[in-house]
């Protein structure tokens, strides 16, 4: 099976600082991959490189290649807008728009040219169901999304991402701002979604990585120290630094 994402010799700089150093990693299809590591190790920068969100930062520079389905996403002919449609993202802090619940999910459809009202309502319902939020909000779709709880907001953001039918979903510490119950709901959701999507999740919660992901990569000081199957990485780490980190000796 070909890899969905292949990253080769990726280096990322913000101005003078060298944030990511010689990153090489392949990400499998329809599987959850966790990125773990202490704060400031570059894992968030890394996933923001995968949908080119770093392009919004003026001092961003990179070399190396990132292939999505075999095609370089930084090729000058690639349109960032198309790329971000294929590679969706869920952010650390839930960031619904100050619009109604319905309009939040419908937003992505509108910008991609879907005008048919029936299709939109159907798609909104499907996405909210897929994000396990439908039952909680189906009677108040016109309510402002700002009135939802943090956990509900984050699931709404996932629904919003699913609605544009991405192939890959990037999640940047999606539970770090949430309570334990909401966290469980999101993790259950990730389990459900992995059959249809390739998911990459950044987390500094190691238990979460073991619960949700098949593969894990350990980042430290902008490098990938070790990567592979989650079970193996946690049970029999090869690198001393990985062992120190997962046994809680630092970070």
């Amino acid at each position, binding site marked *: 099976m070909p890899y969905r994402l292949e990253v080769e010799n990726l280096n990322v700089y913000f101005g003078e600082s060298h944030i990511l150093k010689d990153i090489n990693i392949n990400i499998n299809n329809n599987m959850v991959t966790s990125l773990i590591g202490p704060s400031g190790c570059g894992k968030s920068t890394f996933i923001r490189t995968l949908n080119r969100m770093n392009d919004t930062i003026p001092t961003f520079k990179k070399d190396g290649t990132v292939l999505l389905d075999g095609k370089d996403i930084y090729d000058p002919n690639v*349109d960032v*807008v198309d790329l971000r449609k294929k590679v969706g993202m869920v952010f650390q802090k839930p960031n619904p728009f100050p619009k109604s619940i319905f309009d939040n999910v419908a937003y992505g459809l509108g910008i*991609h*040219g879907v005008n048919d009202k029936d299709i939109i309502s159907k798609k909104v319902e499907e996405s909210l169901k897929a994000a396990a939020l439908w039952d909680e909000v189906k009677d108040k779709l016109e309510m402002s999304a700002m009135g939802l709880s943090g956990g509900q907001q984050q699931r709404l953001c996932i629904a919003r991402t699913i609605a544009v039918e991405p192939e890959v979903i990037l999640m940047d510490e999606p539970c770090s701002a949430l309570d334990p119950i909401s966290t469980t709901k999101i993790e259950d959701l990730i389990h459900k979604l992995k059959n249809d999507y390739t998911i990459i999740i950044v987390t500094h919660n190691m238990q979460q990585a073991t619960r949700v992901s098949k593969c894990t990569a350990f980042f430290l000081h902008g490098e990938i120290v070790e990567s592979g199957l989650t079970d193996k990485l946690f049970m029999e780490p090869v690198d001393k630094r990985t062992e120190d980190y997962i046994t809680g000796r630092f970070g």
Partner: protein
Amino acid sequence: MNRIISPKNSQKIMETIFWASGIFTVFLLILVIGYILVNGLPVINLNFIFGQPIDNGAAGGILPFIISTIYVTFVALVVATPLGVGGAVYLAEYAGENALVKAIRFGSEILASIPSIVFGLFGFAFFVVYLDFGFSVLSGGLTLALMAMPTILRTAEVAIESVPKSYSEGSMALGASKWQTISQVILPAAVPGIITGVILGMARAVEETAAILYTVGAAIQAPVSIFDPGQPLPLHLYTLATEGISMPFAYGTAAVLVILILVITIVTNTLVDRYTKKMMGR
């Protein structure tokens, strides 16, 4: 997807429009200032600045008008600064969030937006007639003070509020009273911001015309006493231009005004710049 214009193309079109509007705005400023300076600078020389006017300003110089401007602006600031800064300290340090504070804020908002000619009406009815100050530097300056006050108040309030809380806590913890803390810790830290506010208020007083139209008089000689009438530069420019006294001198006076305002703006910006840099730790 049957759209007439694709999202990518509309992005390009709108980006062009936004750039064009930005550049057009810069062009407008250059047009106005450039035109005034190109026509006005050749008129300006030492004689023009320091000379006495001849024939109602058709020849000679504009010294009395410059002196009038400085004089009324000075009176305005002497009155407006304590009121504005005092009000700012009260709002920032003493008042809570209650109906009175809301009323004060709304009052200063109204003061900031009342048409200047209405200030002129009030100045005439109250200072000139009711208090019997006559057409004078005092009447004009006091009217301008009312206009400059809200500017000073708002800028000073922001400056005082941006002084870190830890400063005043540090001082209070040493047993200083509230006023000692304010006068010795908070106000000194806020001084650059307060000065900026005073300069902005000054700019408003220097450029104002309608409010002094019927308060300051229209004397050709420079005022000596505070009860003498004067004729600040904007008023003089208005007279020159609308009564067709001298077009070249109108350009010259306009250029002097524009340069004054530019200098004031640049000084403020430098101050603000230096202040922010200092606050950020150089």
